């Protein structure tokens, strides 16, 4: 029975052990999965999952460690816990002498207690470690993270080590490498140095890539648009110039004008003579004009009635005159049905109202007379005028003028005579005046550019200010003075890229001077901490879990070794099969990590033996881990654990982000501050208030000049911190020494008055500490005063503070301390990711920056 019970006990134990090992393996795999993602995701979308994983890891490792501690703790040395019954005389207490109290109460309780302490304790340990890292180490961590991001984006490779590239492009091997490479970069000085040396190039390359992408996407379409407009306008201009030339020639063709004058005058001559001819012919026909109408009943009837009325004796001369007038008017206004006039004109004297002749004859006579009058009136030629007289008369001149004005459409003055040849020449010229100008007006209406004058050659057109203006308008911020319609696109692209700022976020955060920004209160404090955590946590967690597994394995083997060799064998076989063989396979692979890291160590860490050893070992570690990872990646248990721990990243617009923390989390959160308080009693850490504003000054070559942290109170700078970035150098040391006198006598007097009874005060006075300050302190103090004298700067900083923006970057333009100002809301890990992926454009430039330092 007991044997069966012990078998069951062992089996249960083994089962629990197997479960524990599996969970640890799951933890390993999940850690790699999580940290293989980019920094941004780990701290962003996957943050909650990462924290849960971390908690899980701590719980598991905490349990393992607690178990190991309890297992190896010599409880039996405490007399109260041993049962006297079991101890034989003279024998030293052994583990199996423990009394039931110890066995079932103390040991489990202490296990529980230790476990509870370890869970938050591990977190605390990590935090303390992180806080104790120096600024340089934080800088190394940031560099490591940048390198990891770049490596993940396949944007860097290392000369002579194509294996790195192969690994990152192989999806099966990539995750492990990517998750752990920040650690290698952080811990290995050689690698860190390699990255530091090349990071400037890397940063520049990212920047240029981004700028080139931007140019191709935005500027090339704009230049093509410009080209299309330019070509259209050029064609339009050319056609218009040609048309203008033709019109201009026509307008200025004096010879043609002369020909026209001659022709016009000849025609005028002909016309005048034709007039006379017509007149003469009509006159000839006048005597028998419309004689057939003399017999017309209507007319005769009218005539007779008028005549009869006029010839009455009662009608005297006045009355007769009136009748004659009436009849004259009647005949003058006589019209045919179709509207044609009768064609005679009679005055009252011409009317014959008597009966000497027959009415028909009288009418004929009147028609004839009337016709002659009519002709004289309409032609304007008096009856008695002869041809020669006519030619020299003003009437012929008039006829000529009328002809030229009406038929030839020449604008001649009213009293024009034919001897005024100039007026005729001018009238002819005015017909063509403005032809060319009208042509050009048509061009101006259809064109956008509206060139004032025709005749520009292609070269003149291309270099004309209007074209430059068009280019500036179309290209906007992509315009440079060296842009011409002829320059090739690739050449212009090169020129434009060269002219751009190389304000690189990556360079800024990884420059040596940046270390100061990592110090407490600095703008990159949080960034530095996050980077260190990222670099340190994964390998330590993995390492810890492996250690826990191994220790428990040892414990189990010890337990079973002597009692149940059979089970021991079983465990051994399981261990070899489950852990040993995959590891062996990985180590023996052609492209095993350790070969590459060995070679890498040799090249990169030549001076430092520790580094080399570490790097080589790291390779072996990677191999082991890769064996396990590959083997157990898709284990069902692993997947189940994964589903439990990883939650989907929050939706974009989901408001319900509150995830109720589990009980373990609550516990963790309660215990952590308690432990932290205990720890803080031991450690000596200043808590620095965060700065109100951070100023980064970049020199002309865009390298970091200085970082300043400022405290503001309304419109004054109340304090300045200038962390000493030359910390480790001799200069830095000097800067910390207290050399300079603080000439604030009243302050010194005050101190004396208040501390006269303090022997420490007297000691420091003797040592010369009092009244002296270090260079840094001196600078900080003066800087405060100096900055307060720069009203624009303080104003700007207050404004920014109000907007919640605390980072001001000043780029020095030239020797006269003119600066360009950029602002960044906050510096966080997201920016690293974006800078690498070439989409970071968040330096907001402030136009019109009058700030100077």
């Amino acid at each position: 029975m007991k044997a069966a019970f012990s078998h069951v006990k062992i089996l249960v134990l083994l089962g629990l052990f197997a479960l524990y090992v599996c969970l640890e393996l799951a933890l390993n795999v999940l850690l790699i999965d999580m940290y293989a993602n980019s920094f941004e995701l780990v701290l962003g979308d996957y943050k909650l999952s990462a924290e849960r994983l971390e908690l899980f890891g701590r719980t598991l490792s905490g349990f393992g460690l607690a178990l190991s501690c309890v297992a190896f703790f010599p409880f039996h040395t405490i007399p109260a816990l041993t049962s006297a019954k079991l101890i034989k005389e003279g024998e030293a207490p052994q583990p199996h002498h423990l009394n039931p109290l110890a066995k079932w109460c103390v040991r489990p309780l202490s296990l529980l207690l230790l476990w509870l302490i370890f869970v938050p304790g591990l977190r605390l340990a990590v935090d303390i470690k992180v806080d104790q890292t120096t600024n340089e180490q934080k800088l190394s961590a940031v560099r490591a993270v940048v390198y990891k991001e770049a490596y993940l984006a396949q944007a860097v490779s290392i000369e002579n080590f194509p294996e790195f590239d192969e690994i990152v492009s192989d999806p099966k091997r990539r995750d492990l490498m990517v998750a752990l490479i920040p650690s290698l970069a952080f811990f290995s000085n050689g690698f860190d140095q390699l990255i530091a040396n090349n990071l400037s190039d890397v940063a520049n390359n990212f920047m240029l890539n981004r700028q080139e992408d931007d140019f191709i996407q935005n500027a090339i379409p704009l230049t093509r648009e410009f080209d299309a407009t330019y070509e259209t306008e050029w064609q339009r201009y050319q056609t218009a110039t040609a048309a203008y030339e033709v019109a201009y020639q026509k307008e200025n063709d004096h010879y043609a004008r002369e020909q026209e004058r001659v022709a016009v005058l000849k025609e005028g001559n002909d016309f005048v003579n034709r007039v006379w001819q017509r007149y003469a012919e009509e006159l000839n026909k006048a005597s028998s004009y419309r004689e057939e109408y003399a017999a017309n009943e209507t007319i005769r009837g009218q005539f007779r009635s008028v005549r009869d009325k006029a010839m009455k004796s009662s009608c005297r001369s006045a009355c007769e005159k009136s009748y004659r007038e009436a009849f004259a008017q009647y005949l003058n206004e006589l019209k045919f049905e179709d509207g044609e006039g009768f064609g005679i004109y009679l005055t009252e004297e011409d009317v014959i109202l008597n009966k000497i002749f027959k009415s028909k004859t009288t009418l004929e006579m009147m028609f004839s007379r009337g016709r002659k009058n009519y002709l004289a009136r309409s032609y304007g030629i008096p009856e008695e005028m002869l041809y020669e007289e006519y030619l020299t008369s003003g009437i012929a001149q008039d006829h000529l003028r009328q002809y030229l004005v009406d038929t030839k459409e020449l604008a001649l003055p009213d009293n024009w005579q034919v001897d005024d040849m100039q007026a005729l020449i001018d009238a002819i010229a005015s017909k063509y005046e403005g032809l060319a100008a009208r042509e050009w007006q048509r061009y101006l209406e259809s064109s956008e550019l509206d060139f004032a004058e025709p005749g520009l050659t292609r070269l003149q057109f291309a270099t004309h200010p209007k074209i430059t203006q068009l280019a500036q308008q179309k290209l906007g911020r992509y315009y440079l003075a060296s842009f011409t319609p002829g320059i090739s696109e690739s050449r212009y692209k090169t020129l434009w890229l060269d002219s751009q700022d190389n304000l690189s976020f990556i360079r800024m955060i990884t420059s040596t001077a940046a270390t100061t920004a990592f110090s407490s209160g600095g703008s990159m404090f949080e960034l530095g901490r996050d980077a260190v955590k990222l670099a340190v946590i994964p390998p330590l967690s993995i390492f810890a879990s492996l250690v826990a597994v191994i220790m428990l394995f040892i414990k189990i083997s010890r337990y079973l070794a002597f009692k149940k060799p059979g089970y021991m064998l079983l465990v051994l076989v399981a261990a070899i099969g489950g852990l040993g063989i995959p590891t062996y396979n990985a180590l023996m692979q052609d492209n095993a990590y350790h070969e590459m890291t060995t070679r890498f160590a040799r090249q990169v860490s030549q001076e430092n033996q520790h580094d080399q050893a570490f790097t080589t070992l790291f390779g072996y570690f990677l191999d082991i881990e890769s064996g396990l990872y590959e083997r157990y990646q898709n284990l069902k248990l692993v997947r189940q654990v994964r589903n439990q721990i990883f939650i989907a990243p929050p939706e974009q617009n989901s408001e319900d982000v509150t995830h109720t923390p589990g009980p373990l989390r609550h516990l963790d959160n309660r215990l952590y501050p308690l432990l932290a308080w205990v720890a803080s009693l031991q450690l000596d850490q200043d808590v620095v208030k965060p700065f109100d504003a951070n100023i980064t000054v970049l020199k002309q070559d865009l390298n970091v000049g200085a970082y300043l942290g400022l405290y503001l109170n309304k419109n004054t700078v109340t304090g300045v911190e200038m962390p000493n970035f030359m910390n480790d150098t001799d200069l830095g040391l000097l800067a910390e020494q207290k050399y300079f006198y603080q000439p604030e006598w009243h302050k010194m007097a005050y101190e004396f008055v208040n501390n006269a009874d303090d022997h420490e005060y007297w000691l420091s006075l003797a040592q010369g500490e009092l009244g002296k300050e270090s260079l840094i302190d001196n600078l900080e103090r003066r800087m405060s005063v100096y900055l307060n004298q720069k009203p624009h700067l303080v104003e700007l900083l207050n404004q920014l503070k109000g907007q919640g923006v605390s980072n001001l970057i000043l780029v020095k333009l030239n020797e006269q301390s003119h600066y360009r100002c950029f602002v960044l809301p906050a510096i966080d890990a997201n920016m690293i990711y974006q800078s690498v992926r070439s989409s970071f454009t968040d330096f907001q430039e402030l136009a019109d920056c009058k700030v100077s330092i």
Partner: protein
Amino acid sequence: MVVLQKNNDRDVSMYFAQCKKTVFTFALYLLFVQGCAVDKRTEDYKPIVNVTAMLPSHASELPDKQPLQNQLLKRNLVVDDSGEVLPINGRACDTDLYYRISQLPLATAIGRHRDLYTGFYLELAPVTDTWQVVLTDNQFAEYQTTGISLSTLTVTLGSQLSSADKFIIRPQPDLPLARYQALKASLERSFPEYRKQWILTHSQARKLGLNPGDYYATVRGAASPYLAETLMTTKARHRLVVKSSPSGTPATVATVVDSQTLAACQEASSVVKKVDKQPLKAQYSPLSVVAVLPANADFNQLERQATLLPKNQYLTFDGDIMAYDEYFAEPQQQGCAKQNLTIKEQQLCKQRIQDGNKKHLRRKVIMSIPTTNKDSK
């Protein structure tokens, strides 16, 4: 009660008297109307005005020059009595032309220059107390005398002037006011009825009592206030008198020429009528070459042109020998066929090469290990 009078109550004698009068009137009437019918038609029609082709006043009417004259007229040019080819009309040259008096005897065209020159341009300086016509530069820095004093000028010009002639007078600057007043007075005596315009400073002109239209105003930005930059003048166009205009850019109001009038015109505007390209013959005479030459040719060297043209060459008014068919070629027209074009200019003559889409930056950065650490793998 009204009693109507009847007709037959009329007095018989009155009746006869009236009748006689009427008959007499009628007889006369008939005589006039019927007897004076005149046929005014004529066979001999004469023109009201004698139409003859008019040549510009400065064109030669000598019979031996007429064939050339006819050819030149078709190109908007004429030849004067001395054989010099001139533009058909001064107005074709963009601005008014003024003749600079620099030597005696004056050019042949003077005296008949109504259609060509708007007037005369004089640069005067006091030489040994009398005003003389001088030859100088744009700044009036130094001058050389011509020996033509004002009195000689009056005598020479007096008979040659036409009523519309104007004078532009530029005396030496920076002289005392009294001298200018004396000059003005003496010019008034010599040429009383002709319009005179002076080139002086504002204050000098005001002190002389000149109206704003009688002197040329300052032009901002020009080195010499009233005359265009020396760079803009040429051998043919000695001076360009400019005046500020509302748009701000100075406008040229007069061009001063003397011996190279046609060249000055060709520089300023396209006075010569353009012709199309013609197939070249093996031989040309100075007469036949006129109709073929391009518009920027030197028409005063027709013999030389006649020898050059069969070789596909001609002489421009600048004095360069150019290829005939190149003048009509399009690149030539656009300034793109010149010999010494810079690379930039050559690019401008062609369309842009559209090769900007290719990325030429490498995406990947290769981190290099310092050389001292590398081992030969």
